């Protein structure tokens, strides 16, 4: 996954976090290391440079303001940043009144369709992504993390702040909802 390649842990990360907790001016190494992976993560969800910049600025501002509250629970620091980023993206969509077009790769759609056993025909793909857009932000977010961000259940759990087992249960419930919606559309 892209995230594990570019978002790998910094050497002495725990020490840097402790330094940033005592003095937020020491947040720079964490910012410089995680800026790119967070930018790409957000960009994939909004597909607009300016919106992405705005959201990423908010993510790091929240991180620097709340770093004192950060506790190491065995998850990497990046998962905490991804969680803030996910919440900010969801907030952006909840507030936004205009429709934003999000581009997804055909291969990812095919993987999703195989998971809900809907074949991979082009016309069916259109119905599935339309139904995906009709789901609530929270439900579609789970599907995005798994199929478009290509996260493992462990990584999903880290980002959502839940166990990997719970992430798996929530994802399958989300897929059931999607499947029902697709069936209602007459496929």
């Amino acid at each position: 996954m892209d995230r594990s390649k570019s978002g790998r842990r910094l050497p002495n990360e725990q020490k840097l976090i402790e330094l940033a907790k005592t003095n937020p001016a020491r947040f720079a190494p964490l910012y410089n290391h995680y800026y790119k992976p967070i930018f790409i993560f957000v960009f994939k969800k909004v597909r607009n440079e300016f919106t992405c910049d705005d959201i990423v600025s908010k993510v790091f501002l929240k991180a620097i303001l709340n770093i004192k509250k950060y506790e190491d629970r065995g998850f990497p620091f990046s998962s905490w940043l991804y969680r803030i980023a996910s919440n900010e993206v969801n907030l952006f969509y909840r507030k936004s009144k205009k429709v934003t077009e999000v581009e997804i790769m055909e291969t990812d759609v095919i993987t999703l369709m195989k998971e809900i056993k809907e074949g991979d025909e082009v016309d069916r793909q259109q119905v599935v992504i339309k139904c995906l857009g009709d789901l609530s932000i929270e439900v579609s977010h789970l599907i995005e993390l798994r199929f478009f961000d290509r996260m493992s259940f462990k990584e999903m759990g880290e980002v959502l702040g839940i166990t990997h087992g719970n992430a798996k249960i929530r994802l399958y419930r989300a897929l059931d909802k999607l499947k029902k919606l697709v069936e209602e559309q007459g496929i």
Partner: protein
Amino acid sequence: MKKYKINRTNIENLPLDETINKYKDYSKLQVRYNDVVKRNKLPLYKNRKMFLFIILIVLLAYLIASGEFSETEEAPINPIEQSE
């Protein structure tokens, strides 16, 4: 509101490193951080300890001032009345 669109080219349109670096600005983040931290600073009177301290100073100032006034308000002894 979100609408999904399928990219059939199988080439992911991701921003280049130069584009990302154009937006990466730690000094901007620090300025925003300082703005938020300063703006959220509690005024002195909203801090319970400082509020009590201010009350104490005002009370002391009042007591000192009233003490000085009571001293000056005492009428000087009239030497004529004294001789009578």
